């Protein structure tokens, strides 16, 4: 049965100065379909979404919606045509209420003599939320009261609402990495909502790095590579290996986490954490980290694992307990003091927390350890550039030169710059908070082998994995946290990894 076609994209091309982001891409979206878009970072998925949303203008090619020419100049125009997008970065305004956010820019229908009827607005907002099956949200409350995952649901509800067409024809929702911050339950809820949504005849474009999710939800999958649409697969014909092969151009290696290189940690203790606590987040956490050891911390969102990391790296001050390094108690009130004690972290939000976007690759790499590039007490540009050049080759950072601004790099390459900085810092204790977040599969593998390199160099590593699988694969010891306490400790030698299910039992 041929379904009704909603959106047709014909030979779309986008040329940025220096890079061809999208080249001659043609896809079509039918009524009631869920389309998965997969590809490595920089493969052109985000660019395509931006063009569809009118955030960027194509260099060549055209789009048609319901057979009519569609050339949006602004996201508002896209909304009017029934296309809405949930952005990777949230676009809700934190200090407005939930209902004000949902009806942002549409207050006219609620205003009388210039005053907004908030009661009616709150009621209607509840209606909008219930349509996507989200409950337990008070629409008069400010958005910052809710955690990230809930905000994501609010945002999705909002987008569902704003992209209704006037002629009541079906609309298309673009979801750009909607699950990266959601817990498993929330992902399930989201998928349930998406299915409900498409049952009404609307369509969804779903972009994610998690192939299993894409496979689970999509009816059809388009694979992108280097700005081109390399293949189109029906759900029945796709599996993770095929997708991986098409994306990367090589088959997935069974040695994904480089288990053969997992180091048995030495007996030498690097750091000892004793009864560490941060009021309201976690308490009474004790463990020790040895040379060459990789400790994975698992837990759901809100279990306190993120805050534990923030305390260890000096971003937050603990309310109780001590951190001992080489047996000596160290107090740190600022991240730079922790760095002096030998602890450095890769924070979760790369763009906001780990790079200086306007600085060059070279400058970013040297930032955590200037003493390495000093000559006669002053920074030597020559030494700095040499160092950057070495790391660029070693880590295979893809950029025109070391003088490129980091803001121009793709997620994977920016993350490699962050790793280069960590390597240059010579810090013996590393906290890796979601080290492969928003990074494509090729770069992920490189990062895994880097982590192995680091543990071979006798560094102590604490990792919070992007997925449970990743935490298990990388770690030699796993700590499970729940509601701010340590619930269990697993040994995870390379030949005897614990099962996901066993770990999840202690998380929930």
């Amino acid at each position, binding site marked *: 049965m041929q379904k009704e076609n909603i959106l047709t994209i014909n030979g779309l091309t986008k040329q940025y100065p220096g890079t061809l982001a999208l080249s001659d891409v043609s896809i079509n979206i039918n009524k009631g379909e869920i389309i998965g878009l997969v590809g490595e970072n920089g493969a052109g998925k985000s660019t395509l979404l931006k063009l569809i949303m009118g955030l960027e203008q194509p260099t060549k090619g055209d789009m048609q919606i319901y057979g009519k020419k569609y050339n949006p100049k602004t996201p508002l125009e896209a909304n009017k045509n029934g296309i809405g997008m949930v952005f990777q970065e949230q676009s809700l305004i934190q200090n407005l209420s939930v209902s004000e956010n949902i009806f942002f820019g549409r207050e006219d229908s609620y205003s009388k003599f210039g005053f907004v009827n908030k009661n009616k607005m709150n009621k209607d907002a509840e209606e909008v939320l219930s349509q996507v099956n989200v409950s337990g949200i008070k629409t008069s409350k400010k958005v910052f009261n809710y955690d990230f995952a809930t905000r994501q649901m609010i945002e999705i509800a909002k987008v569902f609402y704003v992209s209704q067409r006037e002629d009541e024809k079906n609309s298309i929702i673009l979801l750009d990495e909607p699950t990266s911050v959601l817990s498993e339950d929330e992902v399930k809820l989201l998928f349930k909502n998406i299915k409900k949504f498409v049952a009404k005849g609307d369509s969804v474009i779903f972009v994610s790095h998690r192939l299993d999710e894409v496979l689970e939800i999509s009816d059809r999958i388009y694979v992108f590579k280097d700005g081109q649409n390399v293949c189109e697969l029906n759900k029945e014909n796709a599996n993770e290996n095929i997708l991986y092969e098409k994306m990367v151009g090589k088959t997935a290696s069974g040695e994904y986490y480089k288990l053969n290189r997992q180091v048995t940690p030495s007996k030498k203790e690097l750091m000892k954490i004793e009864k560490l606590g941060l009021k309201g987040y976690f308490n009474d956490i004790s463990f020790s980290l040895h040379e060459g050891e990789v400790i994975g911390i698992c837990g759901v969102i809100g279990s306190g694992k993120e805050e534990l990391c923030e305390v260890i790296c000096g*971003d937050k001050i603990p309310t109780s307990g001590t951190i001992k390094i080489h047996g000596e108690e160290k107090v740190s009130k600022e991240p730079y003091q922790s760095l002096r004690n030998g602890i450095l972290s890769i924070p979760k939000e790369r763009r906001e927390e780990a790079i200086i976007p306007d600085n060059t690759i070279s400058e970013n790499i040297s930032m955590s350890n200037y003493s390495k590039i000093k000559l006669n007490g002053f920074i030597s540009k020559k030494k700095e550039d040499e160092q950057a050049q070495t790391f660029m080759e070693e880590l295979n950072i893809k950029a025109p030169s070391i003088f490129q601004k980091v803001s121009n790099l793709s997620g994977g390459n920016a993350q490699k710059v962050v790793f280069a900085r960590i390597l240059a810092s010579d810090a013996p204790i590393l906290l890796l908070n979601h080290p492969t977040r928003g990074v494509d599969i090729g770069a992920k593998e490189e990062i895994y082998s880097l982590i192995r390199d680091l543990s071979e160099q006798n560094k102590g590593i604490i990792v919070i994995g992007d997925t449970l699988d990743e935490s298990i694969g990388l770690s030699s010891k796993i700590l499970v946290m729940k509601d701010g306490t340590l619930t269990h400790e697993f040994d995870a030698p390379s030949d005897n990894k614990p099962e996901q299910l066993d770990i999840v039992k202690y998380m929930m």
Partner: protein
Amino acid sequence: MSNNKRNLKGVKTLFTKINKNDISTILTVVSLILIVIIFTSINPRFLSLYNIKNILLDCAPLLLMTIGVSCVLFLGSIDLSNGAVASCSAVMLTIMLPKFGAVSFVYVFFYGAIAGLINGVLHTKLKVPSFIATLCTQSIWQSIALLIAGGQPLSMTPDVWPLLKWGKFSIGPIPFMFIISIIFMGIFAVIQFKTPTGRTFLAIGCNERAARLIGLKISFSKITAFTLSGIGAGVAGIFFAVKLKSGIPTVGEQYNLMSIAAAVLSGVLLTGGKGNILLTFVGVALITAIQNGMNVIAVDGFWQKIVFGLIVVVAIYINSDRKNFKLIVK
């Protein structure tokens, strides 16, 4: 030989830096040339050797204040007090010289540094937004200057004139004061490009959260930037006093706006994260040329202030990154 090569490379990197800097710097250079042509055509004496020397002499204090305030602007913060600090240091020098002799210069230098340090501490430790903190200290130093001067200009007594002689020295048309200010610019540039603290200025302005987690010393760098601004203002105050042989308690007043204007014209972003100490010279030259030119063609002093106000607004408009709606709130 190798030394020569290194110097050549230094010049080269300077040029690549200029090339990378965008439109505002180029526009400033173009306007500087235009301004010179216009003023010269109105009054040919504008380009006379005597007037060039005058312009360079006027440049000196403004350059000092501009390189100082630029360090603060790099952070995305602002220093509104540097004019008042300059006035106060001019008055202090006038009062101190007869009592303490040449060592007064050192005292006043440290006064400037401490005034800057206070701004930095207020901003970082007490978390007062720099805009408010420096607005308050501006008011305080201005009042102190007026109080200790008794509300009127103080003149230097003839017995200390020998200590002021150096202000008149010059090598050809290049005044000694100008050379000193260029040396300060060199030192500030070394701090910006060659020390971790200076590197941190721009990093903070660009992404303070990341700079902190990277392990850079945020508070220390901020305090240093404010201190440098204070030093620039303090030395500028010395220049004012030496040049005029008197301590005028309002002498630095208009220089606050002028120094910010010069910095912005040279490509310093008010939201922080972008700028180059060496390029601020271009902005300073343009501002001084406009001011001097208006004097040469006899424009009323009150009109001059209107012109500078307009210049700042226009320069910020040209300079601002309109894709990025950062506001100055730091």
